Each structure stands twice: as structure tokens, then as C-alpha cells.
């Protein structure tokens, strides 16, 4: 019975090298944006809580969502602006 290909080749060093090459590194900026999600979400929740407690702050924030995010130290992106709009 023939040996299935993967059984004798799975850990062949050439194949390991090939598999190491398969997955390129994601751009560091993408990784950092995703890694900062917890902090970003906390900042958005803080803004939302303040907006809930203060109608003036809420309307000012709605007028300038990007500015509100930037003031909270969040790197602004269209998705985050939308997320904040939804939260408000």
C-alpha cells in the first residue's frame, strides 16, 4: 500500500521552510489597530457614558465625532466613527 504523501513529507525540512514562507506578516499598523481594540472600545464607552449624562456634550460630540475620538487618544478610522455614532 502506498504511503500517503503527508506521512513521509509532513516534517521534511524543505516543506517546513515552505510552510514558514506561506503566511506573510500582516502590516504592523493593522496589527496595532487590532491590538488596541480593548483600549479603543473603553474610550468609546467613556465618551458614550459622558454623552448619556450630558446632552450638550452629546450634541457637541455628534457634531464632531472624529474630534471626540481624537481627543480621547483614539486613532480615528471610518469604522470607529460609525461605531461611536451607533453608540450615541
Amino acid at each position: 500500500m502506498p504511503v500517503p504523501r503527508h506521512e513521509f513529507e509532513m516534517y521534511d525540512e524543505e516543506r517546513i521552510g515552505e510552510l514558514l514562507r506561506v503566511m506573510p506578516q500582516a502590516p504592523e499598523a493593522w496589527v496595532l489597530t487590532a491590538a488596541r481594540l480593548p483600549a479603543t472600545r473603553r474610550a468609546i464607552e467613556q465618551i458614550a457614558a459622558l454623552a448619556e449624562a450630558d446632552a450638550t456634550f452629546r450634541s457637541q460630540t455628534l457634531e464632531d465625532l472624529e474630534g471626540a475620538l481624537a481627543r480621547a487618544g483614539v486613532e480615528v478610522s471610518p469604522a470607529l466613527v460609525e461605531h461611536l455614532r451607533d453608540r450615541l
Partner: protein
Amino acid sequence: MEFHQRMTALSTATDAGLVARCRDGDDDAWEELVRRFSRYVLAIAQQAYRLSPADAEDVFQEVFARTYERLGDLRNDEAVRPWIAQLTRRLCIDRIRAGSRESADPEALEAGVDDSLDRLDEALSVQEAMLAMPDNCRDILDRFFRRDESYAVIGTALGLPSGTIASRISRCLGKLRDHLEGREHARPTS
């Protein structure tokens, strides 16, 4: 625990251990989870579904945003890898349908994807095995295979004669192969 020790502990944690820590609000664990699966998610988007860089970036961010939001719904923490793979597949298909290939046949979209994913799963296992390698091996393998650096560049960076680089790479590949063969012993901590 010092920062370096803590990050080392996270990098060697099992997937399930990492998920549990993320659920407990550990931001460092979340960053490790993102780093651990970032190549995998990107490779699914770009290699299996051939998304453009812009679409791949959108899918990438959406995958991790949804993972963050729904980690609590995961029934089996050990299944985070297939769960992320499935989520990425779904978001890639949504992105393709929403774009210019709106009328694409769903079967055509999935053609060859399973084979690509099998290969990427295998590559992810090798990536995980790399975490168990000594720092010097991880570094040299990463430079040669992933960053495509020449022997000369690696030699200069690591302060080694370039004539010894090939044999070091071979020795490290051997260690990695040995580790893969005893894969069940990988990641002792959780």
C-alpha cells in the same frame, strides 16, 4: 511578574488559555491573540479569497473586532482557531459579494478554498511550533524564511560569519521538525 516574563508566558500559552485571559480583560493577552492569528487571517483573505489589500485590511479589522465582541460566545475555547477561520471566510465572502463580483456564484467563490485553508492550517501549526524554539533559532528562521534576508544580511545582523548561517538554519529546522513530531508537548503553559 516582569514584563518580559509575562509576555513570554503569553506567547507560549495555549489558544484556550489565551482566550480565557482575554475574556478576563487582559489587554496583553488580547494583543498576543491578535499577533498569533494575524498572519492566518491575512493569508485567508489574500491567498484563499484573493482580496485586494484594501479589502483584506477591512476584513482583517472586522475579524478582530467581531472576535473581541463575541469571544464570550465561544463554546469551546480550544476551538478559537477554526472559529476565527470560519469568521474570516464569511467576511471575505460578504466582501466579495458586496463588491464588483456581486453576482459571483457562491460555489465558485469557495472553489479551492478548502485546499488553501488546509495548507494555511498546516502553516499555522508550524508557526506555533516556532514559539517553542529557542530565541536564536526563531530569529534566524524568521529572518531567512519570512523576511527573505540573505546569509550576508543575517550574518551582519546577528554578528555571525555568513558561512555558518546555512548550517545554523539547517540545525534550527531540524529542531523545529523534532518539535513538530512531538507536537503534543508544545505550549506547556496555559
